[in-house]
């Protein structure tokens, strides 16, 4: 069993990419993005995409490249601040935006991957998010009904992977990637390093390989930092 592809172009071929598809993209802001996959989708020029991602790029980078290219018709996300491309196209009415509370967003995706038909959450009750949705009182608390989210394709970045698709993520780059990999028909992972099966101890696997269909080693990443905040090494207070 090998899910290894020689390049992101090979992994994101005609069998996977098409106009009008729904694409989930892991990452929080510009951190932990599947950079090479995003670039490949930009080069291929598939359009009318629905992008499901916490942000849709930022500062003109990441998924914002697909916005610049006019490849996106809808964004399902939780936060669109710091993204002038999205703001412009949203205000112009050319891109539709569906905002979700971030936890509801993550849980809807998990539900999509876990075969759950829907769930009740307290988040969003009494807000615009709950408008038109079913409310239910349980044990003295009000909950709102939320439905699962799925996609045709998920693109995720991981630090280490093997040919079975087992993945490990580095630090806060994990974020939405595991649940997105569960919730898409096809998941393509780009990994900093491809290792032999068994190199990752079974107890150290973050995302079991059955959720990943295609894997590509991509050694170089831009790793854009949105806010580089540091403290002085000496003299100042730590």
């Amino acid at each position, binding site marked *: 069993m090998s899910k290894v592809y020689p390049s992101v172009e090979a992994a994101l071929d005609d069998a996977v990419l098409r106009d009008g598809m729904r694409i989930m993209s892991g990452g929080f802001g510009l951190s932990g993005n599947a950079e090479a996959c995003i670039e490949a989708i930009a080069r291929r020029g598939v359009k009318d995409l629905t992008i499901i991602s916490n942000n849709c790029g930022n500062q003109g980078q990441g998924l914002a490249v697909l916005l610049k290219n006019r490849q996106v018709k809808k964004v399902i996300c939780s936060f669109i*601040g710091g993204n002038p491309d999205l703001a412009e196209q949203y205000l112009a009415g050319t891109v539709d935006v569906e*905002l979700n509370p971030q936890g509801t967003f*993550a*849980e809807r995706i998990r539900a999509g991957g876990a075969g759950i038909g829907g769930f009740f959450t307290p988040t969003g009750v009494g*807000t615009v998010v709950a408008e038109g949705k079913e409310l239910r009182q349980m044990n003295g608390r009000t909950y709102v009904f939320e439905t699962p989210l799925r996609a045709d394709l998920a693109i995720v970045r991981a630090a280490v992977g093997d040919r079975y698709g087992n993945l490990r993520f580095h630090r806060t780059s994990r974020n939405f990637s595991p649940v997105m990999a569960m919730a898409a028909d096809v998941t393509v992972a780009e990994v900093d390093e491809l290792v032999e099966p068994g190199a990752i101890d079974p107890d150290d696997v973050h995302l079991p390989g059955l959720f990943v269909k295609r894997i590509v080693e991509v050694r170089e990443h831009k790793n854009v930092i949105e806010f580089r905040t540091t*403290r*002085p090494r000496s003299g100042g207070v730590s």
Partner: protein
Amino acid sequence: MAWSRDDMVKRAAAEIRGGTIVNLGIGLPTEVANFIPPGVDVLLHSENGLLGMGPFPYDDEVDPQLINAGKQTVTAKPGASTFDSALSFAMIRGGHVDLAILGGLEVACTGDLANWTVPGKLITGMGGAMDLAAGAKRVVVLQSHVAKDGKPKLVARVTLPVTALACVHRVITELGVFDPAGDHFVCIERAAGVGDDEIMRGTGAPVVFR
């Protein structure tokens, strides 16, 4: 005299108890981390998937894949853990975060909070604000007492789009500390020299002084 921003942040830091899990919202609340007394052992939760967040890194420690919810580079303290967003919000929604200190636009004396959007302004999205407001065991709001145009931000009923209902336990402003109590606020503390009049004038709901 009204509290400075640093005074407010310090007062908010005094809300933090040792041995607890605390989430600091984006903006002013983030600065609370700098004023936690050294002896208070608290684990900071960042909703993008980090528990045990440390201070900003030294210049040569910067890791682009170790950031907080404000997308700033941070560090992980010994005893930290990383996890995915579904588990991170399970922590929040499940009541495992003891305290969230959040920014505010309006807080009602019923505890209702509005802090995510202003109609007519460019929309940014609620991010994790609704989950934190609805899910944290205790919510403290750190905000100015009145808006730039002088309109009260502590009100009888929120006029801006709601973040969560009946969720705020305490509001800290430059004038003092106020607890929502149903049909009024209770002023439990005030900046030195701030009088009842000044507080009542700037508050859009009844205030009971203690």
